[in-house]
């Protein structure tokens, strides 16, 4: 169950997402091809996929027409089918099948044109919207829809969580703070200028390299929602029972929490889909692998433990993709004083001790033993997918090496003075380490125990905090309030397309859980968002430097970047496993009859 939360969080919509807390499992969501260049022509190690992808490239007419494909997911959906309001991945998969945004992301997580092209000129962004794109209710997509969307999100009654994605538009803050306002989204934002039906100009408050990724660019149907007050939108039948989108499939039937049925939208702007329909169906995660084999589900993200059983199974193609997330073990270095982080915990202040811990933990062994090898050891807190992932050769590798760990601890003065088999700290005092981990999956406990044993092997008196694992909510509650018993904690973050570390790493970020404060890091993060950083090479260099700093200082030990595995029925082709789910280009899906 916890995983799903992760999923929800991690996958939260589109470009706007920065970072999300995840449960500590290797099987979180997220997806993106490890080797991004290969993505276009399919996973090359997989011949089935290759054939499939080649076929889409040839042309749509060559693909078999008709049939239905079932897309599976393991958590019931909330049913908020509006892209500006939905909360989790449960709803976003359905939304991604039925609608699209102006801007997409490419294989390297950089913005790419979808329904619109754009020009950035200082603080002004001009969108040129594609002509002839129609909503499922027959209305044409225009610049007014996008302007309406921003008005909804900036409206004081708006019930979703995306205000931060419009806050950079000039005049948005004013509308958000209106005391006296209309219940419907009628308040124009000063910085939005609709030039004609297909041209839209937006003025933002400041120049930043990630504006386009942070700005909300997923339109909602203004004509369909006409006359509905913003406060009532997420509850309206227009959202919950007959939602309207721009994508290749339109909703025909919704069984709450259980399935959504779609039929092909013949007027889809990129051409009519190959399939007659798609069913989005919720199933029990424990049975995911079996259900694919039974043919009840055609496309689903399966956890590594089930993926192993499906390898070589008849009629199933497995597609792997590196997740847009990473897991880590954090050191508690200080506390949150209500305003900012204060790094005042002396326990791990010696960087050699932190480095020794990294050497003591068998990170590859953890992936092999508990995630069936699906994952990559990383030394920087970033997904290997991202263009900002640093050059590993410049980073200290912290390979599993107990001798090196012992050496570092000796150097730091952590020696066994009392002769009880465990080291004391530099002052000769007892040194015990509480390790806190989340429960939630069958591998949680053995994995946590294994890490504790790793530490004990180098003479650290480590143990599971209170001798147990903690449930997701309790875990984050305790980590957030810097519970005095926590020394080490194992968590995970889902990431956004943009690599900016703000939100998780700044001095004034509440979610900077290690409570790490470093001036150089502050400065680098600021430089990464400066005007000079509009040049992506410069920005990549800044992040490279920042990752080297983190790698040296090690406020947390990055564990791995997990791999997501999709099980796909071999009869189904044209599926592209994408950054967030496998719904990209659903109009190209086909089924061999």
């Amino acid at each position: 169950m916890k995983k799903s939360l992760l999923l929800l969080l991690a996958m939260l919509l589109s470009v706007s997402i920065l970072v999300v807390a995840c449960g500590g499992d290797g099987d979180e969501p997220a997806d993106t091809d490890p080797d991004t260049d290969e993505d276009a022509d399919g996973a090359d190690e997989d011949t089935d996929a290759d054939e499939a992808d080649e076929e889409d490239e040839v042309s749509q007419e060559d693909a078999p027409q008709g049939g239905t494909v079932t897309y599976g997911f393991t958590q019931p959906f909330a049913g908020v089918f509006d892209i500006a309001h939905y909360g989790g991945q449960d709803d976003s998969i359905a939304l991604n099948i039925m609608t699209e945004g102006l801007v997409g992301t490419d294989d390297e997580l950089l913005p790419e044109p979808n329904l619109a092209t754009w020009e950035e000129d200082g603080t002004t962004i001009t969108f040129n919207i594609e002509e002839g794109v129609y909503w499922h209710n027959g209305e044409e997509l225009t610049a007014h829809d996008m302007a309406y969307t921003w008005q909804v999100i900036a409206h004081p009654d708006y019930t979703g969580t995306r205000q931060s994605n419009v806050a950079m538009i000039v005049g948005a803050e004013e509308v958000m703070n209106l005391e006296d306002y209309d219940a419907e989204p009628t308040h124009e934002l000063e910085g939005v200028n609709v030039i004609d039906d297909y041209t839209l100009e937006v003025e933002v408050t400041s120049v930043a390299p990630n504006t386009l990724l942070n700005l909300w660019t997923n339109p909602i149907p203004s004509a369909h929602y006409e006359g509905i007050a913003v406060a009532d939108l997420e509850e309206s039948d227009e959202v919950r029972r007959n939602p309207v989108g721009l994508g290749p499939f339109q909703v025909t039937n919704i069984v709450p929490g259980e399935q959504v049925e779609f039929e092909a939208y013949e007027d889809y702007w990129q051409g009519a889909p190959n399939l007659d329909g798609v069913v989005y169906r919720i199933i029990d995660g424990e049975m995911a692998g079996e259900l694919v084999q039974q043919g009840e589900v055609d496309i689903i993200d399966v956890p590594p433990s089930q993926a192993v059983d499906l390898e070589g199974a008849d009629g199933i193609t497995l597609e792997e993709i590196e997740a847009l997330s990473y897991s880590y073990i954090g050191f508690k270095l200080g506390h949150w004083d209500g305003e900012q982080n204060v790094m005042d915990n002396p326990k791990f202040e010696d960087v050699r001790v932190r480095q020794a811990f990294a050497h003591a933990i068998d990170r590859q062994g953890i992936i092999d033993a508990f995630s069936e090898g699906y994952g990559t050891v990383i030394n920087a807190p970033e997904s290997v997918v991202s263009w900002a992932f640093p050059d590993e050769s410049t980073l200290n590798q912290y390979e599993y090496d107990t001798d090196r760990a012992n050496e570092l601890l000796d150097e730091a003065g952590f020696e066994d003075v009392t002769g009880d088999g465990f080291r004391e700290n530099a002052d000769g005092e007892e040194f015990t380490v509480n390790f806190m981990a989340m429960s939630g999956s069958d591998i949680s406990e053995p994995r946590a125990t294994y890490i504790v044993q790793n530490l004990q092997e180098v003479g650290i008196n480590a143990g599971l905090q209170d001798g147990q694992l903690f449930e997701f909510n309790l875990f984050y509650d305790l980590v957030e309030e810097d519970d005095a018993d926590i020394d080490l904690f194992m968590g995970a973050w889902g990431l956004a397309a943009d690599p900016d570390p703000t939100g998780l790493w700044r001095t004034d970020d509440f979610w900077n859980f290690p409570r790490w404060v470093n001036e150089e890091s502050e400065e680098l993060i600021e430089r990464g968002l400066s005007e000079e950083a509009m040049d992506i090479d410069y920005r990549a260099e800044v992040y490279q430097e920042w990752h080297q700093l983190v790698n040296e200082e090690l406020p947390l030990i990055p564990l791995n970047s997990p791999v997501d595995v999709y099980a796909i029925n071999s009869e189904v082709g044209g599926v592209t496993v994408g950054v967030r789910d496998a719904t990209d280009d659903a109009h190209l899906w086909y089924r061999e009859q």
Partner: protein
Amino acid sequence: MLLYTLRRILIMIPILIMISIVVFSLALAMPGDALSGQIDPANTDPQYVEQMREQLGLNDPVHVQYARWATGVLQWDFGRSFNHRMPVTELIGERLPNTILLSVMSLMITYVLAFFMGRYAGRHPYTPGDYGIQGLNYLMLAIPSFVAAIFAIFIFSFQFGWFPSTGSVGSGLEAGTWDWWVSKIHHTALPALVLGGLTTASYTQFLRNDIIENAQKDYVRTARAKGTPEGTIYNKHILRNSVIPIITLFGFDIASIIGGAVIIETVFTYRGIGELLISSITNRDYSVVTAITLMLSVATLVGNLIADLIYGVVDPRIRVE
């Protein structure tokens, strides 16, 4: 009788108040709240989370929160689901038909199985057939329902392919049509079989023992002496008397069936109240958890009342004053 009923209903009021306090405080005692999963710096920020907590009243003292909630409940307002973003009553209303269908089907299965097995075992006590039925009963009583559910899915869905293993209805069907109902019942059949099958044991034993006991009674001896055929004695005279206690069990069963459905629905991903309860607990969706728990408590109380009343109706010798 009327007086008795009124008195029972009056007594239920303080019990309900106490239950509501317990339910509410236990829900609040769960670590975390609906917002503690929302750690997502891009879409939200810590200030937003704090602001939402304030707005939802999660920072108020417990008694203030309870008073607000109880006032709402009295006006049939159970609050809003934070996760599903809709009123709880509407959400439960969406799921309730599924659970009712499952419960009715499983009750029917229980009654049919128990009736035939109990009748056979009661008429032929201490024979291999009777021992076989008893053995089967104890086995079903001993198997945890989730284990039975997984076996049932493995055997009937995966091996034989007779029943679908997940969901409550197939796709491509229009609600209310004949095909839709067939699909619905087809999807409900397997969970109902597991749920109904496992509760058969107590009914069967009840019926069997009652038949054996009745068979020793004077009126049966009289009937035998008059030369009434054995079949008529059992099917007409004894069975009529023995079925009475079974009927009264129905009242007690209302709540236990829904309780059992919690596990079965989760395993079968069958969207009903039970599955909703479990997922709401995981997501700390308090308003839903308290509403469903309260609903189950009321069902138990009302079920007991019904059971007591039916006693009086079917057996005039029992007079409640």
